[in-house]
């Protein structure tokens, strides 16, 4: 067993490969300490209340322990974990029944958005944080995920395309559409 000082010095990727080799739960606890607050706060963005975010964080870390072998090291571990978290949260939100109500509004916005011009990052950054948060709480969680990856976590297009298993042009299109939807809804709020 490595000393705790040595373990703390390990990079995320080295730590993950040690966990895969040994299945050691103490090493997983180190990984938990590094990422739990970030994962929890990401879950808060998708959950309706704090207790729900705690449950989501719990489930994500349990699933992570089982699935950690599927991390191939093609991207940074943090990038992989964030997309793992987003996918989990989006699946969770979409299972919820209230999604059906929103879908009608989403479709209408999508139709309207199809005719608007591309939204530049400059215009996008002019949005007020509070209203943006409101818009993000009502748009399709998939669009929200793409926007958070791009603008909050600074993922590259390549990172997003790897995490969503989509082509880079498809990712660009998704971001463009998501931005248009946000701008549309932003005006109505």
């Amino acid at each position, binding site marked *: 067993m490595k000393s705790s000082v040595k373990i703390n010095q390990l990079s995320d990727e080295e730590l993950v490969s040690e966990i895969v080799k040994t*299945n050691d*739960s103490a090493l*997983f*606890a180190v990984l*938990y*300490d590094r990422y*739990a*607050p970030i994962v*929890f*706060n*990401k879950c*808060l*963005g998708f959950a309706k209340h*704090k207790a729900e975010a*705690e449950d989501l*964080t*719990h489930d994500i*870390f*349990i699933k992570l*322990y*089982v699935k950690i072998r599927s991390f191939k090291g093609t991207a940074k571990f943090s990038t992989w974990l964030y997309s793992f978290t987003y996918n989990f949260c989006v699946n969770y939100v979409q299972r919820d029944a209230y999604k059906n109500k929103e879908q009608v509004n989403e479709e209408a916005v999508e139709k309207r958005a199809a005719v608007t011009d591309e939204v530049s990052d*400059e215009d996008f*950054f*002019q*949005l*007020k*944080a509070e209203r*943006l*948060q409101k818009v*993000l709480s009502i748009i399709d969680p998939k669009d929200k995920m793409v*926007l*958070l990856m791009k*603008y*909050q976590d600074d993922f590259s297009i390549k990172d997003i395309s790897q995490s969503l298993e989509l082509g880079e042009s498809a990712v660009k299109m998704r971001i463009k559409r998501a931005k248009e939807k946000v701008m549309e809804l932003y005006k109505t709020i």
Partner: protein
Amino acid sequence: MENPFKKILNQEALPETLKDKIMNDISFIKLSIDVADLFAVKYPTVAGELFTMTEKKSKKNKK
């Protein structure tokens, strides 16, 4: 220009009790995996090797 997405990042503290709960569940999962591995992989391997060893020995004795 300030990115509004960075401003909406939540900064809530994570409850300490959650770690214990997660680590307990993970220990249980690890135990289940180890027990399954013992009975489904290790025991059959040992038993298989034992049989082949005794078979070889009995063949040698016959010769």
